[in-house]
């Protein structure tokens, strides 16, 4: 098994609900708590497993905002695991989930240096490195209904921009979607072989935009009226 996420960049609305749900679940999860520093102070900061960035692609009038959720990619060739001197970082053979044994970590930050995706964050209260667990304490929980045995972020996403599944199974929903939509990994040139895959933006008909102001008497009167009203 090779468990991971598919994130649909075309659908994500950038609401940060996945990050909140992640924080909520994992604060009391296996690697929790996720410490906050000055949560109500002037410089709020803290540990998050999932962060959403917002990008702008291309230039006006063809520009498009792309919301970009990122968490651990659970890479096939995870350098964060090989560089770890204590053996605290490990990749599970059975499902490919990369985890950190909090009892072994010495907080040297070396794994975070090796991670290109910024998935690992040091918890300054516990002095240990923390990261996305793919909700390992949810997805195998026999007490939960089968449809709820999914990572918190996937369950909560109101836009259904996130999918969870086994990438080794060619017939799984994630594998099929990646095939059909042309999913891609991030920074493939570094050869980490990330499991999480992103789906590209769909091509949509171009919405015509007036880029040039229309001249003429009618437009001048309209602009004059607008100026009067604004005063």
């Amino acid at each position: 098994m090779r468990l991971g996420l598919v994130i649909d960049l075309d659908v994500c609305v950038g609401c940060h609900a996945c990050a909140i749900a992640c924080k909520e679940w994992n604060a009391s999860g296996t690697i929790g708590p996720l410490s906050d520093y000055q949560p109500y102070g002037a410089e709020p900061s803290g540990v998050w497993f999932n962060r959403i960035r917002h990008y702008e692609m291309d230039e006006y009038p063809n520009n498009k905002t792309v919301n970009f959720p990122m968490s651990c990619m659970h890479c096939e060739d995870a350098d964060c695991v090989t560089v770890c001197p204590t053996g605290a970082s490990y990749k599970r053979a059975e499902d490919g989930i990369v985890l950190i044994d909090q009892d072994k970590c010495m907080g040297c930050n070396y794994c975070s240096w090796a991670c290109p995706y910024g998935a690992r964050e040091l918890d300054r209260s516990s002095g240990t490195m923390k990261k996305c667990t793919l909700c390992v304490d949810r997805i195998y929980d026999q007490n939960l209904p089968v449809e709820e045995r999914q990572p918190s972020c996937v369950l909560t996403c109101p836009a259904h921009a996130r999918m969870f599944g086994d990438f080794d199974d060619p017939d799984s929903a994630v594998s099929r979607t990646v095939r059909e939509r042309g999913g891609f990994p991030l920074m493939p040139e570094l050869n980490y072989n990330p499991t999480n895959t992103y789906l590209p933006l769909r091509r949509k008909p171009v919405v015509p935009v007036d880029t040039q102001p229309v001249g003429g008497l009618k437009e001048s009167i309209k602009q004059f009226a607008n100026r009067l009203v604004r005063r």
Partner: protein
Amino acid sequence: MHPAFSVIFFTVASGAGFGLFSLLFIADTFKLGGGFTPTQLVLGGLIAMSLVVFGLLSSTFHLANPKNAWRAFSRFRTSWLSREGVFAVVFMPLALIYLASIWFEAPAWLRETFGLLTAVLAWITVFSTGMIYACLKTIRQWNTPLVPANYLALGYASGSLLLLLGAVYAGLDTTPYIAMSALIVSIAAVLKAIYYFWIRNPGLTPTINTATGLTRAKVKLLDTGHTHGTFLTQEFGFRLARQRAGLLKVLVFGLGFALPGLMLVWVFNEQGGAAAAVIAAAAGLAGAAVERWLFFAEARHVVNLYHGAQRC
């Protein structure tokens, strides 16, 4: 990268200690300048070892959870950090056996065998220190064989200057020590110059386009999604103005290489006496510390592409 002072002190001090110890073995084997007495050799060896020990202790100050530091010896097979720790610890007993065989006048074969083993192990340990940084694909400025070469050259350069200082105080013929220092310091200077030349334009690097997979158009960051800094911006967001980096590079060459070189001439001409040798060693170490600070400050981690950088 954020330059952590404990790591800077650790790499400079342990590099100089390992360099001093292996050069001490060479000085002993070839009886350079008449050769040190056993007491002087043991004293020099102990100084070198304490530099290494203080360095190792200082390196634990940058750990957020030092109570688990003993576990760092467990992943020898994959981690350069672990390898460095193991080699540094194995170095200690071998070095002590070498010093003991000098002190108790053991047979020459025993003394030479352990001396050679210790010198080779010192070399491997400094190489491992360099490889900790050089093996990271995420930092283009570090991912080059020039990094372990620089670590070795600078460690041996500062070690050779310390050894020269010892030779001056021991009243030996300083000429072979000056020649050795001059050679190693100039090699270190040339290697560092190549490194600085290379990182000006380090070839193909990830861009904001490959980092986001949005490769068909210009991409720019609108919002990082957090109101204040995170661990990632604190650890990797360090920026150094290009002009300041240039000034510091001048300082590295002036303090680390040129001033010791001038002092070597003074020692050779018997000007300034022991003070010249002291200045040479102190300037060499200070130059190495500035170099190490720059090494961290100039490194650009690819995670910056998710915080607004266009390329790394």
